[in-house]
């Protein structure tokens, strides 16, 4: 073999332990991704390779799939926020023609899935499978359950009151406060010349993935195959094999297309296990997809937040002290924490105290940038209030206190594109229709690792890339094809990308904006090695050169120093004889990084007569290091901004305090933004290709809500400290302003 290799160090951290391993990678003499500007695919705008399939409806989602003989499953859920099941009688359901399987809490294997002790309205109690969805639903309604209703509490503030119903048997509703401090806030506030103190509130936010959660489970000879709408095929495989006590190798998880997850589909979901239990009992495949209502109440949410913030600064705007006490609820899952420092800015003295609260509500789960939008809303609002109190431009106050040079540059760039200099210096009047401008910022980690991939070059020249990642709808497949096409000198159509199957080399879940930064380096490493190995079979014999002296471009392989010496890709592949070349590669350092700021500038229009706010214009500045495909990247930014507008203006889970149910588990009263609400969005890239790949899923969602709130204030002087900024809140804030 004439391939030159070099050693690189891979550092992995797991549960606080760091391990270092050295691996061999091809030594091409090139660092990182090379000169992307001259490339045909990497870093270039390309339509998704599955775009036509999707827009013509040929793309099959889990929801669309049907297997021969398949049954439909339904889950009966607790009708009360807290109750004990004292009796279940499923005999009427069992007698209904078409019903093939019923599982109850006491059945074998059901204990961890179905409950006799229900802690939120919507918790799983029983499940049925029947020949049609309608029969399954009828059967579910025929299961008679007698509950003993118990006292409950569904709001975080109420759960902290003395005498509130206790959610978890072994601990109080409110956790011990977690304190994070630096310096001395008493000294800091004493030194402060201007202070602002205010309370901010954000609401529980649900994912609203277009495709609901669900799966199809199929057992064959004791082996389980699951088609799931999931962001994490590997974790789903692991979870199901553990649940059923069978080897990982006996569980295969497949996900082709999916309609979004936003963090709610990262783990082995209980409804997957229910479907598999039903399927095992019935002896035929079972499909179980959730309804929109189930989606809102059971599959996760972003916790709410109550944040009391005090901030102090010198007259020149320099921050001196910051104090925050915050709490929120993740329902029965508790955990509601947000970043534990003064978000984004440098403050010498701070103290943050956070409390997680249990309530009788559905469990929280990751949702696009967990914790950050809550933190950003309060911090970026209070910075705006501080700037007003200081009589300074809020941008200047931010820039002065922001330790991150990249973000400062992004703010400058965005302000210019947006026309921040045209912003009114003081709020407009509380009459008529007024426009105003606001800004907000955020930060996110991202970064990659832990991914393996496999490249196959067949003797006929066809190419496959296999990777056990999943495309949650963002274009992962396309990025993989781009990297391979670039390396092999082929077109996107020439690359067959196979992902979304646990039979392929493993990758992690698609969460935390990590997929692109995990998969891209692994694929790059794989195809680089595959290319060199292919060349190695003939470089010296045919051309008398080393494989490193050959290049693949435009369907040809040729000698770099003498392009007249060439052969076609097919001829090159034919040198393999009758055996395909199979190469495994993995994520390697040097091609990705993590840590990105995000900045947004927003113009709104406020109707002061009705309190209705419209977002008119957004300039979103993001950075992702090397942007693999600007077209896909921009669409992530657009999506983030739109979701951010929803979070800022429309979306909230509303619970009835007396009944303990969500009153808006639908898409009518749980408002996500519609086509008419979409503003002009200018997506601005702050380019840093030298950093390698960094994810973009989360960052563009973080700054939107506070930027809207600040723009509303700038428009008409209404300071709304709670999102969503609904008309009633705007009218109340306007009245407050008029009263002075």
């Amino acid at each position, binding site marked *: 073999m004439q391939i030159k290799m070099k050693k690189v160090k891979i550092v992995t951290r797991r549960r606080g332990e760091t391990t270092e391993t050295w691996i061999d990678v091809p030594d091409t003499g090139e660092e990182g991704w090379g000169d992307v500007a001259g490339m045909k695919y990497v870093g270039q705008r390309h339509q998704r390779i599955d775009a036509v399939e999707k827009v013509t409806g040929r793309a099959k989602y889990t929801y669309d799939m049907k297997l021969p003989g398949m049954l439909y499953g339904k889950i009966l859920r607790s009708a009360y926020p807290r109750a004990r099941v004292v009796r279940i009688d499923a005999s009427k359901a069992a007698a209904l023609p078409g019903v093939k399987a019923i599982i109850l809490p006491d059945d074998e294997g059901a204990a961890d899935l179905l409950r006799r002790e229900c802690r939120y309205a919507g918790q799983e109690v029983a499940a049925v499978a029947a020949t049609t969805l309608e029969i399954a639903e009828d059967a579910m309604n025929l299961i008679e359950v007698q509950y003993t209703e118990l006292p409950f509490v569904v709001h975080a503030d109420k759960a902290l009151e003395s005498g509130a119903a206790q959610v978890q048997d072994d601990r109080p509703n409110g956790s011990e406060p977690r304190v994070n401090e630096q310096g001395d806030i008493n000294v800091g506030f004493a030194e402060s010349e201007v202070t602002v103190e205010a309370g901010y509130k954000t609401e529980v936010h649900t994912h609203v993935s277009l495709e609901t959660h669900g799966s199809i489970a199929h057992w064959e000879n004791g082996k389980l195959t699951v088609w799931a709408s999931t962001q994490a095929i590997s974790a789903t495989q692991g979870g199901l094999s553990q649940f059923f006590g069978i080897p990982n190798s006996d569980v295969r998880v497949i996900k082709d297309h999916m309609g979004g997850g936003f963090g709610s589909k990262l783990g082995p979901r209980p409804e997957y296990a229910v479907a598999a239990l039903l399927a095992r009992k019935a002896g035929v495949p079972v499909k179980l997809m959730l309804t929109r209502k189930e989606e809102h109440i059971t599959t996760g949410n972003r916790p709410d937040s109550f944040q009391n913030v005090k901030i102090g600064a010198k007259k020149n705007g320099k921050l001196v002290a910051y104090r925050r006490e915050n709490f929120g609820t993740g329902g029965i899952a508790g955990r509601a924490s947000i970043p534990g420092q003064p978000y984004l800015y440098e403050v010498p003295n701070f103290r943050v105290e956070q409390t997680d609260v249990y309530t009788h509500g559905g469990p929280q789960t990751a949702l696009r940038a967990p914790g950050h939008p809550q933190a950003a809303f309060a911090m970026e609002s209070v910075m705006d209030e501080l700037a007003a109190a200081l009589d300074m431009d809020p941008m200047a106050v931010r820039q002065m206190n922001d330790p991150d040079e990249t973000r400062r540059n992004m703010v400058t760039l965005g302000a210019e594109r947006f026309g921040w200099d045209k912003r009114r210096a003081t709020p407009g009047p509380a009459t008529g229709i007024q426009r105003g401008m606001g800004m907000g910022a955020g930060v996110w980690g991202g970064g990659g690792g832990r991914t393996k991939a496999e490249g196959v070059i067949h003797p006929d020249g066809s190419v496959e890339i296999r990777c056990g990642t999943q495309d949650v709808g963002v274009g992962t497949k396309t990025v993989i094809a781009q990297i391979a096409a670039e390396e092999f000198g082929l077109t996107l159509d020439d690359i067959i990308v196979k992902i979304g199957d646990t039979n392929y080399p493993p990758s992690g879940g698609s969460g935390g904006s990590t997929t692109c930064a995990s998969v891209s380096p692994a694929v790059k490493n794989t195809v680089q090695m595959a290319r060199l190995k292919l060349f190695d079979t003939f470089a010296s014999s045919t051309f008398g050169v080393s494989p490193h002296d050959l290049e693949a471009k435009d369907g040809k392989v040729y000698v770099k120093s003498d392009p007249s010496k060439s052969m076609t890709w097919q001829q090159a592949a034919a040198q393999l004889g009758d055996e395909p070349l199979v190469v495994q590669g993995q994520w390697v350092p040097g091609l990705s990084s993590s840590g990105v700021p995000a900045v947004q500038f927003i113009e709104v229009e406020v109707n002061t007569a009705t309190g*209705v706010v419209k977002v008119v214009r957004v300039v979103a500045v993001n950075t992702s290091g090397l942007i693999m495909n600007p077209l896909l990247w921009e669409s992530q930014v657009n999506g983030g901004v739109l979701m951010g507008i929803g979070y800022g203006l429309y979306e909230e889970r509303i619970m009835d305090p007396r009944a303990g149910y969500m009153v808006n588990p639908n898409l009518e*009263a749980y408002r996500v933004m519609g086509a008419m609400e979409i503003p002009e969005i200018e997506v601005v890239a702050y380019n840093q290709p030298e950093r390698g790949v960094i994810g973009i899923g989360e960052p563009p969602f973080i700054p939107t809500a506070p930027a809207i709130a600040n723009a509303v204030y700038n428009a008409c002087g209404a300071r709304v400290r709670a999102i969503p900024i*609904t008309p009633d809140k705007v009218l109340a804030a306007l009245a407050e302003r008029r009263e002075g």
Partner: protein
Amino acid sequence: MKKFAYIDATSVDTVPSLLGRRFGQAQVLAGGTDLVGELKEYIATPDRVVNLKSIPGLDYIRQEDDGLKIGPLTTLADIETSTLINDQYSVLQQAVSAIASPQIRNVGTIAGNICQRPRCWYYRSEDFDCLKNGGDTCYSVRGVNRYHAIIGGGPCYIVHPSDSAVALMSLNASVKIQGPRGPREEMLDDFFVLPELNIMRENGLRANEFVTEIIVPASKPNTKGIYVKVRERDAIDFAMASVAVTMTMSGNTCSEATVVLGGVAPVPWRVPDVEQFLQGKQITEDVASAAAEMALREADPMSDNSYKIEMTQNIVSQAILDLA
């Protein structure tokens, strides 16, 4: 969804007997945009669904001597785009084009819109056994009542969801109703009923009656109308508050006016006092705000919906000023 028999009606006359005399047993189906939702959520659980679309000739817009006649199955989209509905009825077109989304307007019908059931989130949820669903509690009273009634409520506090009904009432429209003993006609003013009269229904249709025509009388010359609707989203949202105003002007004096509020009461809420007050007045900002205040005089908000008073006052005065 509960199982039901599906019957294609073939003529107007046969519908009453297909419906039968007991409420809840049978329900007519037009575009289905409202009814199907109620069926799926087990809010409506009829034994029979009587399809009206199988009856020929119920889809029309005609200008006749005594006014505009609209067939019950006329889609909202057809009303929105009809050139027959000229300036004097423009308030109807404004209201209809503010309903839901283009897709729903393509399918939803005008009679269905007037007869649609309320959107109260307690009523619409199978989780709550509310007064309107036959239970004994109106959950809105001590629950979350942000979108509930501020006028005319009690013991149930729904708001009437129809935009078209508000506009039609401002045009003094009436409906033709078919019953077992033939047709009758009723002003929309009398058609809708408050919960204190009948908590289970929002209008006075008997179980075996249905709407067969909407009649909009011709209005006086120099009459103009306006519909203002407040909603959080422009893409699909019911009214948080709305108002339809028509005014007949001579010069800048109002000789006659109609004012109907939407989104604030269990029925489209006509305010005759305000109509009288405006008569003979020159329309100034002061007159408009006095009228607006008068329109909401009876408002008695609950814990979360007092914002509706100011919001509605603001759009009433804006509507009046815009027409002058």
